[in-house]
Structure formats: C-alpha cells, structure tokens
C-alpha cells in the first residue's frame, strides 16, 4: 500500500507530467479499484471458497473417526460416498431421498404461506391508521428474536402434557379426542411448518412493504377513477409492480427455508422424527452423529448442486419473462 501512496504523489501535478506518465497513469487508474478490491477478494476466498473446496475434497475421502485427526491420511473413496448417497434402494440413500421429499414439501408450503401472509399484511398496512407503527413493529418481532430463544418457546408450547397448543386445542376448544403429540410422530411436520412460517413471514412482510413504497400513488388514484375495485387494484397494479421484488424474495425465502438448520434442530434435537426429517439435520446426523464426514460432505455437495440448479433455472425463467417487458 505504501508504494501506491508514494506513486500517487507525482500524480498531483497532472498537466506537466501527463505525456510521459500516460501509460503507468492509466494502469494506476484502472488498477486502483482492483487493488482496493483485493483484500475483499482474498477474504472472500478464505472465508467462502476455500471451505467449500475443502468440503468438496472431503466428499471424495473416507473420513470416519479413524481418520479425522489427520485428514491427509484418509484414503480416497472415489465416488463411493456419492454412490452410497444416491443408491435409493439401500437404507442410506432411501433415507436421504425421503428426507429430500420432506424438505421439498416443507419448503414449498412454508415459502407459499410466508409470502401470502407477508404480502397480505403489507397491503393491509399500506394505508395510514392509528397504531400502524406499533403493529408493524409487533409484526417484526418474530424475525428479530434470536432463533434459539424463539424456537425453544415453541417447544414448550408444543409439549404434549403441559403445552399451550394442546391446552387450547384439546382442553378448551375440544377439537381433538385426546392431547396430540407435536414434537414426535406425524404431527411434527405441521409443528415445524408453523414455527417456520411464524419465523419467516415478517421478512416477506418487510420486503413487500419496502416494495410497495415504490408504487406511485397516482396509479391507484387513476385506477380508482376508472372504477377499479380493491381486488382489481391489487391484481393489476400492486402485484405486477411488485414482481421484481417478489422474484428475489421468493428465491431468498426458498434458499433459507430449504437450508434451515436451527429450527428443526432446536425443535427436535439431533434425531428428527421421520415426518419432519429436514435435509440439513439429516446431513448433520450423517456426518456429526455417525462420524462419517465423507458421506456427509457428499450429501452436502449434492444439496449444493440441487440448489444451484434450482436457482439457475429460476433466474433464467424469471429474467426471460422480464426482458421483453424491459425492452
């Protein structure tokens, strides 16, 4: 860095020195931004890319407890970890596939509900009324709470014997014949979905609310003059104007929900019930609990490839739709 400063000094006399210094000066001008980017680039590599590459390398190794102390000595596994993961007729692959389907169903439902609730709330909150600020703040609380604290509260509420949920559904409303289990068995899927939507929709609300600020009032006024009702205004003005925001929002929600580890882990611990066996916890279990980090890494790489493919297709499809509109 010192050299840049020293070299920069002659540059303060531009007119006279200009002809002689033209080429180095240009390089300096073009080079400086890159030089300034360099620390960020190096850190990005260190923090992001290197662990990813190491993870990919791990997926080709037999990395069990016998080798974790010295990774170098772990034998190469070739594609064994991958063939183990995708052999859907064998128990490991079958369990992974099951977990994958559970995760897909969970993610689709959760993203759809988060988006729907968030958008509806944002539209309702668009007009000013007394207490709007307070409600907005209240809506954001689940998003602002630390995940662990929030989810552990849900664990208490979902308890079979003393939980609030059973108290309301069973004891007070009498909707069920007997108290239900929410943290084990088939209902665990709905428990997980509830917590995920509760935690995720404020983000959708926040983003859509920001998007709504950019829609000119005049559009609504003009539409109202033309006799458009509230539904037509939402359908013809609000949603089309929000579409660039929604495209990003849905993608981000999808990636976060699909990868969510904290919620299922705090809800169910290290062995999730089959009905709520999300892939992130499944992979954690495959690597940390069974001490087979090679197989866990292979599953992670497969997950990464899947998410890359989904993201790529999604971006291609949504940007194709946009281009004619932009033109």
């Amino acid at each position: 860095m010192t050299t840049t400063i020293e070299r920069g000094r002659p540059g303060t006399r531009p007119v006279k020195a200009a002809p002689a210094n033209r080429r180095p000066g240009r390089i300096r001008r073009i080079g400086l931004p890159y030089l300034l980017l360099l620390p960020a680039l190096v850190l990005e590599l260190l923090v992001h890319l290197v662990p990813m590459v190491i993870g990919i390398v791990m997926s080709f190794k037999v990395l069990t407890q016998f080798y974790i102390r010295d990774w170098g000595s772990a034998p190469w596994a070739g594609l064994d970890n991958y063939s183990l993961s995708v052999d859907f007729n064998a128990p490991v692959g079958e369990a992974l596939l099951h977990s994958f389907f559970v995760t897909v169903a969970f993610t689709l439902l959760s993203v759809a509900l988060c988006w729907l609730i968030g958008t509806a709330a944002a539209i309702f909150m668009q007009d000013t009324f007394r207490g709007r600020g307070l409600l907005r703040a209240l809506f954001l609380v689940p998003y602002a709470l630390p995940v662990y604290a929030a989810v552990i509260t849900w664990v208490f509420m979902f308890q079979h014997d003393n939980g609030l949920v059973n108290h309301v559904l069973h004891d007070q409303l009498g909707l069920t014949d007997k108290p239900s289990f929410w943290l084990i068995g088939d209902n665990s899927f709905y428990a997980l979905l509830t917590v995920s939507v509760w935690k995720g929709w404020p983000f959708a609300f926040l983003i859509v609310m920001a998007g709504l600020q950019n829609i000119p009032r005049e559009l609504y006024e003009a539409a109202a003059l033309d006799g458009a009702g509230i539904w037509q205004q939402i359908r013809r003005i609000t949603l089309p104007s929000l579409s660039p925001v929604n495209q990003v929002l849905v993608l981000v929600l999808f990636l976060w929900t699909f990868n969510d580890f904290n919620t299922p882990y705090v809800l169910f611990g290290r062995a999730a019930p089959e009905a709520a066996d999300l892939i992130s916890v499944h992979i954690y279990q495959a690597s940390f609990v069974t001490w087979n980090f090679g197989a866990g890494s292979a599953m992670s790489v497969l997950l990464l490839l899947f998410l890359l493919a989904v993201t790529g297709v999604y971006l291609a499809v949504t940007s194709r739709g946009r281009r004619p509109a932009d033109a």
Partner: protein
Amino acid sequence: MRTIRAAAAGAVVMSLALAATACGGGSSTDGEGSNDAPKTLTYWASNQGASIEIDKKVLQPELDKFEKETGIEVKLEVVPWSDLLNRILTATTSGQGPDVLNIGNTWSASLQATGALLPWNEANFAKIGGRDRFVESALGSTGAEGQDPAAVPLYSMAYALYYNKEIFADAGIAKPPATWAELVADGKKIQAKGKQVIGAEGANLSENIHHVFTFAKQHGADFFTKDGKPDFTSDGVVAAVKQYVDLMAKDKAIPVGNAEYAQNQSVSDFAKGKTAMLLWQSASANLKSQGMSDDAYGIAPVPVQSGTPGAGEQVNSMVAGINLAVFKNTDNVDGATKFVKFMTSDAEQKILNTAYSSIPPVAAAQSDAAFNTPATVVLKDTLAKSAAALPQVADESQFETAVGTAVKELFAEAAAGRPVTTESVKARLEKAQQQMPAA
C-alpha cells in the same frame, strides 16, 4: 487489461496456496505432546451437577488447590452434554483442544479409534499410582479390549430404581419391585391412586440405549457379536426392545407423554411427586437440587426378569461413568498427567464423588464411610456385582444413534396408540442395523 487479469489470477492462486498450506500446517504437524507450556492447562469438564454453575462451584476450589500444589493454572470450562461430543470431535479434527477433558465412558472406544487421546500404558499408569488403584469394572469402560485404555475412570455411576415412599405407602405396596412382573403389578395399584407409574426419557437416544442394553442382557442377547459386528435383530434383542417399549405400549406403566421427553423432564416429574418410580443413574444430587428431600424416596436395584441381580442374565445396569482423558497433542503432557493424578487421588475422589453423588472408581476411596449410605450401597453393589459395560467398539456412537432413534420412533408409535409388535420392532432394528457403517 491483460496484466490486471494476470495479477488478479496471481492473487487468487496465492491466497489459495496460502490457505492450503495453512490448513495443512494445522492438521499434520501436531502429533505427539510436548512440555512447551508447563504452567497452564485447559480442562473441559462435563456437566455433572444440576447446572453448569454448580459444577464451577464444585470444581474451582479443587483446581485452586492443584495450582497451589504444583503452580499450574487450570483453565476450567464446563461443557454441556449436548455440545460435548461435537466439541471433542472438532478439537480432534483441528488439533486445537483442551489438554485434559472428561468423556462419557461409553465413548471411550469410539474416541480411542481417532487416536487423539493419550493411551494409558503401564508407564503412564505408573505416573498416577498404577492401574490397580482402580476398580476393575470401571476399567472395563475405558476403551476397546486388548488396547491400552484411552482414559482413566473419574466418576462411576449405576442405574437404580428410585421410588416415592409416600406413593408406595398410599398404594399399599410394602417393598419396591424386584422383577418386571412385580413392577407392572405394582403399577396397577399406583394408577388406581391416580398417580403415574414410572418415568422414562423416550426421545433421549442415550437413555434409550442404556435401558435396551440392560434388557438385552436380561434376555441373554448382545447388540454386537464377539468380533464386534452389529447384530440388532436377534430374537433376544427384539424381545428386549419390545419389553422396554411395552412398558408404555402394553403395560401402560410409562405415561404416553414421556415419549417426547429428552430434557430430563422425567426427573422433574419424579421430584414433584407426579410419578412413583424412576430408573436413573446417581440421581440423589439432582433430586435434591429440585427440592426433593432424601427421605422422601427410596433406592432399590433395577428389577430383573426373576431372581436377584447378578452376572449374565441377571445384569441390571450398564457401567455408567465419566472418564478423564488427555489430548495426545497437549503442550503440557507432564502437567496433564499430574492433573490426572490429582483428580484421581483418594482425597479428591472423596470430595468430588460426594458432591456428584457418584461412586469413586478408585478402590481406596470407595471404601470410605461417605460411600456407605443406603443410597450409595445400592449403586456400589450394582457396580460390583450386576453391571455390564456397554459394547466397547469403535462404532458405539453410531450404535447409540441408530438404535436410540429406533426406540424413540417405537415410543412415538406406542404414544400414538399404534400397536407395537415383534414384527414392527424387528423392522425398526433391521433398518437401524442397515444404517451402521459396513465394516
């Protein structure tokens, strides 16, 4: 432009190379221990008391004593059970760990296989007063057979049947059940008085394993063959797992709500007088901290199928306990050994095991009067006569997960009111066995 691109590429390659060498340096160099830092030690203690704060209060005065004696400062960290194994694995992988640490004794063989722990050969044992200071049953859970132990025993524990005296008196039960049939029969009387019979942690994988292990012994079966291969589907094992789950499914002795317990709620239920019985290891200190006085409950041996507890099919507990291990790559190997010697000395053993209501695995300390109360005599007898060590195989941790999860799922089915049959138990165990690594 070309030069810039070249420079950028160069930077990328260089940082990658830097990162690669940095990683290589971390994992390969730190092989054996040294004495580079003779004045400090880092100690990871497991959570033995009712809370981490209580552990700190128990341990810190002892560590201060050690510092006074040797001039070595011990930095204490009490690690909760939910994190301990992950922390040890991370430390093993990175080579950045404590010098001395507590491990659950059932992990001994698994951790031994990583090669990260200092083996306790004759020479090392000599430094702490010799192998024969320790009780043989405790040494049985320190690593795979035929290898030098990976750790030394620190606290010993055993399962016992804790029963609420008042509930028993109300139900007209004169003495605690000695067999499972008696327990089920007593349960009917207890239920007639509107109380819950016996607590369990249905969603806690380790608890599940400890119980089905004992039941398997009582059915003359083992989860592993003599040469260490998983064998989860033998008739004896299936019958054992079914008998345990049937305590909820058929006998209705375990309340269905316990199927989701994993945070020691069953101990709280017992301390509050909601359930009449509890199978637990060394629960006294825990019950006291939850406000249950010592004379409110009695302690009896865990029931057997028939007869009295003993060896073979009369086993009624696992050898539970905590071992003390030294990380092989410590930079204070002499200090670490001194610390192990201190913690396993007769005097410290008495202090620590009294505080945690466990049994000293050191023979001389065990004979102290402090461990001759009725409560500890039951535990001591169980350890001496009728406890067996969990399989000391490298795949023990995978076994706990696979079979523990199978039992958890079976409890979930029983709680939902679905039938638990020999076939359904066998199917779950078969799946668990298929998940074990192919050896």
